[in-house]
Each structure stands twice: as C-alpha cells, then as structure tokens.
C-alpha cells in the first residue's frame, strides 16, 4: 500500500488526506444508509401514517430529484473547474451538511404529507450536490494504488456502525444521534471554507500527481462519458443496487428474518454481521486492487443469486424456524463487496476533469435511482400482498439474469473490439 510508504517517509499531509476521506465518506454513507433510506420509510409510514404505496411514490420522487441534482451539480463542477478546487468542494460540502443538519433536526416534527414532500425535495437537492462533491475527494486524497483498500475501509466501517450501533431504526432516534454527530463536522468544514491552510494547499494539488489524479481505468486513454466503458459499469451497478434493495427491504420486514438480520435484538448476531461486513469489505478491497473489476461484479451477482436462493429455500422448507446465520452471512458478503466497488469504481473511471459528471451519473443512477426505485417496488409488492417467497423469486431471477449477462456482455464487447480491428485485451 502507498499509505505505508507515506508513513515510512513520515509524509503526514497525504496521510491526513486518507483520514479526511474516510471520515467524510463513512459518515456520509452511514447517514444515507440509515437516516435517509430506512428512516424515511419510518417517517412516512409510522409517523405520518401514509400507506406504503404512497411512501413508495415519494421515494421515487426523491430518487429522481437526487439524480437530477447530482447530474446538474456534477456538470457544473466539471465545467467551472470546481472538481479540481478543493476549497470550493469544502464550501459545497459545508452547505450540504448544514442543510442536512436542518433536515435532521426537522425530521421528527414533520407531521403532514405536504411537509413530508417538502422535506424530501430539500433532502434530495442536498444529497444530489453531496454525491459528486464527496466522491471526487478520492482524486484529491487517495492514490490509485490504495483506492480498493480505502473504499473497503469506508464500506466496512459504515456497515459496522450501522449493524452494531444499538439504536432503533426509527426517525426520532436517528435525528438526535445524527444531529450530535453533524455539529462538529460543520464547525471543521466552516473553518476550512473560509481560511486557507498550507497543508490543505498541498492536499489540493495532489490530484495533479500521476499517482492520484487519473483513475485506474483511464490509463492511457480517459474513459469518455458516452462510451461502453462507462455505461457498462453503470448498468451493472444499477443491477446490483436494485437487486439488493428489492430483496433487503422485504426480508427485514419479515418478523422471522429480523432475528438474523441487521435489526436483530440479539447483540451477538449484530456483532457477527458487523464483523462480517468488515471482513467482506476487506476481501473486496483486495480483489478490486489485484484483479479485473469484472471478477468482482461476477462474484457479487453470484453471491446475490445464491443468497436469494437460500432465502427462497428457507421460506418454502424452513417450517417457520429461525434461519441459520449462513443466510445473512452471504447477504452481508455481497453487500460489502458491491459497496466497496461503488466507492472505488467511479473515481477510477474518471479524470480530474470528468469526476463530477461521472460520479454523479454513476452514484446517481446506479446508487440512488436503483435503490429508491427498487425500494418503491418492494413497498408496492408488499402493498399488493405479494408473498415473500414470490417476491424473492423475482429478485433471484434478476440476480441470475445478471450472472449470465455479465460474461456475455464482456464477451460481446471483446468481439466488437476485435471486429473494429483492436488487438489489445
């Protein structure tokens, strides 16, 4: 790892960059993972009393608005050169976190549908701006060589906290804890937004170094936005996020499976899940760093297909018994794998000139749009009374489709390259 080299040479500035990146992304992802995705459902259904179908529509609105806001801000960042200006990015992040603090404090007081919709609109704008800003930090702070490992640490830590931290997944508990966590971050960002520091100046120029700026898949030729090399991974990541959320929401709402899920009342089960998240993420980091990315995609789809097969099997033949931990184990591995991939992939498909647009499209479409559209679909399937077994059967079918489609896509792409006269693999 390049980090060890920095430590050996006592180069503390780049090391600070690693710390800033891990802190920002871990906190941001934890917030989105718990407060937005799960807290929002709780706010709509439990606090306001909206039917699940209506909440699913609001979630879809959130997804679309987040995507629009992310792409708009990503394009603006690239065109105006903000993607390469660390101080501007700190200012933008300060604004985003400030808005999120207000939203977090306001959340428990939202009691009517129109307030809820307004809350969602403001939230989606903040999230949308936050996506290209936070993901582009990787080009400033993390060298290409270490991106897989650092992404793994972010993914592992976020899930570790989400699985282990013993608060109920409800909006009022979230609100209090999140607000307390955000205040110190806002103070630090406020200082960094108005005052120049020498160590920040040095961090701000790191993206110009060969080891940092240009992503792994942009060497020697940068990946263009309108290309198979970019939209292929977007499609695959969309599939991964969609499959995950579609199955996850129904599983954690089935009482039998709560006991071996992230919401288990048994601390030892949550500890098992939390530790496995970290182990899974580290394994994904090692694979991402040392192999072609398609292997990681293939492994993720394979894991999801097998996981859902296990759940379907247990729903049909489990006779109502508490499921064995092997079921959540594979789910956890799959989730840790693709989350690690998500953090590293978009910066590695970008240069400092395209990171805003690419991370906005990648995370916006593959992450937010897929997650919220599948969450909406899961709520809808619940509302129309589709059984868990049938629901998971559809999820499994999707996972299997991607397992088959990935090698076919890679093969066809290679054929197209050869037909055009290309020779390099």
């Amino acid at each position: 790892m390049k980090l060890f080299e920095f430590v050996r040479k006592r180069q503390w500035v780049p090391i600070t960059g690693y710390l800033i990146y891990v802190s920002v992304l871990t906190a941001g992802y934890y917030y989105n993972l718990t407060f937005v995705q799960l807290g929002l459902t709780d706010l709509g259904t439990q606090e306001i009393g909206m039917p699940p179908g209506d909440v699913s529509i609001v979630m879809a609105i959130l997804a679309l608005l987040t995507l629009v806001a992310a792409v708009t801000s990503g394009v603006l960042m690239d065109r105006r050169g903000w993607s390469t200006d660390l101080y501007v990015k700190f200012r933008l992040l300060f604004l985003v976190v400030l808005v999120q603090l207000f939203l977090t404090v306001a959340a428990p007081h939202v009691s009517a549908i129109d307030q809820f919709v307004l809350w969602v609109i403001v939230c989606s704008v903040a999230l949308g701006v936050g996506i290209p800003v936070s993901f582009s930090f990787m080009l400033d702070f993390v060298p290409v060589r270490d991106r897989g490992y650092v992404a793994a640490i972010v993914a592992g830590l976020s899930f570790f906290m989400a699985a282990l931290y013993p608060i109920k997944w409800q909006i009022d508990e979230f609100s209090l804890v999140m607000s307390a966590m955000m205040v110190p971050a806002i103070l630090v960002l406020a200082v960094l937004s108005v005052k120049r520091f020498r160590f920040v100046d040095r961090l701000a120029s790191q993206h110009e170094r060969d080891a940092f700026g240009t992503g792994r898949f942009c060497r020697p030729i940068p990946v263009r936005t309108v290309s198979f090399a970019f939209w292929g991974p977007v499609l695959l990541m969309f599939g991964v996020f969609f499959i995950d959320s579609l199955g996850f929401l129904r599983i954690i709402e089935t009482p039998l499976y709560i006991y071996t899920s992230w919401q288990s009342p048994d601390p030892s089960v949550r500890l098992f899940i939390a530790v496995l998240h970290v182990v899974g993420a580290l394994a994904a980091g090692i694979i991402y760093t040392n192999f072609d990315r398609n292997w990681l995609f293939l492994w993720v789809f394979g894991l999801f297909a097998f996981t859902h097969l296990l759940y379907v099997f247990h729903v049909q033949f489990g006779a109502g018994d508490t499921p064995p931990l092997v079921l959540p184990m594979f789910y956890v591995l799959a989730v840790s794998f693709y989350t690690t991939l998500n953090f590293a992939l978009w910066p590695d498909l970008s240069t400092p000139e395209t990171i805003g647009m690419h991370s906005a499209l990648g995370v916006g479409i593959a992450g937010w749009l897929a997650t919220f559209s599948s969450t909406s679909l899961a709520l809808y399937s619940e509302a129309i009374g589709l059984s868990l077994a049938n629901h998971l059967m559809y999820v499994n079918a999707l996972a299997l489709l991607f397992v088959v489609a990935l090698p076919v896509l890679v093969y066809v792409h290679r054929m197209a390259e050869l037909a055009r006269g290309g020779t390099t693999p």
Partner: protein
Amino acid sequence: MNLELIPLLIIALLMISAGGADVETTEFVIEGDHEMTEHRGALIVGDATVTVPANEAVSGPVYVIGGEFRVQGTVEGDVTQLSGSLVVEDGGIIGGELQHIGGSEVLSDEAVITERTTVTLESNEPGPIAAYAPFVLTTLMLALAGAGLSRKRNALLDNIGAATREHPLISLTVGALLSVTFLSIFVFMAFTLILLPVSILGLLTGLLIIAYGIIALGYLAGQQLNTSRVGLATGLGVVAIMVLLQVIGVIPILGDLIGGGLLLMGLGAVVLTYFGLQEFEPVSLPE
C-alpha cells in the same frame, strides 16, 4: 454450522435418497431446542436438541448426526444414529429399526424398540498406532505425490509456490472466499438429492485442491533445505507442513486459525495459478 457435520450430513442424505424418502418433507434441524410433535417425513438432527414429547409421534426416518435426540413419545419409522447423543426415555417407542453406528446412547428399560442393530466401524478407544495411522498414511501419500510432481513437473509447483510466497494475502482471500461459497453451495446441492453426486464430487475436488496446496507449501518448505535433490526436499517439506498442521492444532483458536489460513492460502494459490499452469500476476497499478 459445525463443519464436521458436513460429511455425516452427506451420508444421511445419501441414506435418505437410497431409502426413497421425499426431499420436500425432509427437515434438517441445525441448532437450538426443538419439540417435534407431528413431523411427517425424514428428520436430520444436527447441532440441536430435538425432543419427541410423550403422547406425540413423528413418522421418521430420523438420522442423528450430532446434538441430542430425546424420544419420550413415538418414532414410527427407523432411527439411525451416526453421531451425537440418543436418549430413549420411559415409554418412548421406536417403531422401526434403531441402527447404532456412532455416538452415545441411553436406552431406558421401559422403552420399546422394535428392532436394534449395531454397526461397529472402529473400537471405542483406538491404540496410538491406529489413532495416528490415517495421518501417517495421508502424509506419506502426499509426500510421495509431492516428490514425484517436483521431479517431473517442477514448474507447476514453482508457480503455486510463487503465488503463496509473493501474494499470501491475495491467495488467502481467494481461498477463503472460494471455500466458504462452494462449501455452502455443495451442502445446498446435497439437499436437492438430485445433485447429491455433484455435491460429493465437488467436495472431493475441494479436498484434492487442498492436498495440492499442501504439496505446494511442502515444496516451498523443502526449498529451504538448499539441496539439489528436489524430490526428497519436497517430500520432507510436505511432512514438515503436515506435522506443523497437526501440532499447531493443539493451540486453541489461534492454532486453528493459522492451520486453516495455511490450507486456504494453498487452495487460493492453486486456483489463482490455474493449478500451476500459469504464473499469477496481479493487475498493474501506477506507483
């Protein structure tokens, strides 16, 4: 699930398959305390305590491969005990045949057992020679295979050894992921009964890959001897690795972790190098 249960589970599923029982009604109880009151179909008792209460009946057949099976009521069919503990209490009835192959059993004088057979596979307390014979034989076979392979196809072991030496973390990660995933898949396949042969074949292949990995580790260890007799060095290296795995197992937890880690590393290196046919090179990244 206790990994040691897997071979017994496969045997139990083979027996169920041979007996013509319906897989859809077969239940495998892995953990916890359970009372069975009206189960119709085959039942496999794993790391769990399963009780048939008084005045209740299950159809059977029942296979005990671990944990404890207590009969206070009635088992209408056969009971086969491969391991674990079987207790038939006063008034307990086994309507079919009770076949004892392994494990401990407590049978009350007041219990009703229609037919009872005992299959003795080994003496209860084997002597030191009998106890270590499987280990010695396995080591000898691996050492001979390693000696032969290193003399005739040295390049294969060179590639696997290089992957283990230069990329231990990658080898370990790949080995661990493959073993966890494929072990679960093969156990899952076994439950379908149709894929039971594939499952057994897969598990045997896994064992062979692990053995190949041990040979490669032995080859690496043998290189430390700095001798031109590569066959002898590999053979001795394999013996050293096998003894190390045996001895280190004495240390609780840590010993198992180190031993397991070595085996998984070997397995990962074998797969990464296409069984030694190709040198493993990770993707190149800018420094």
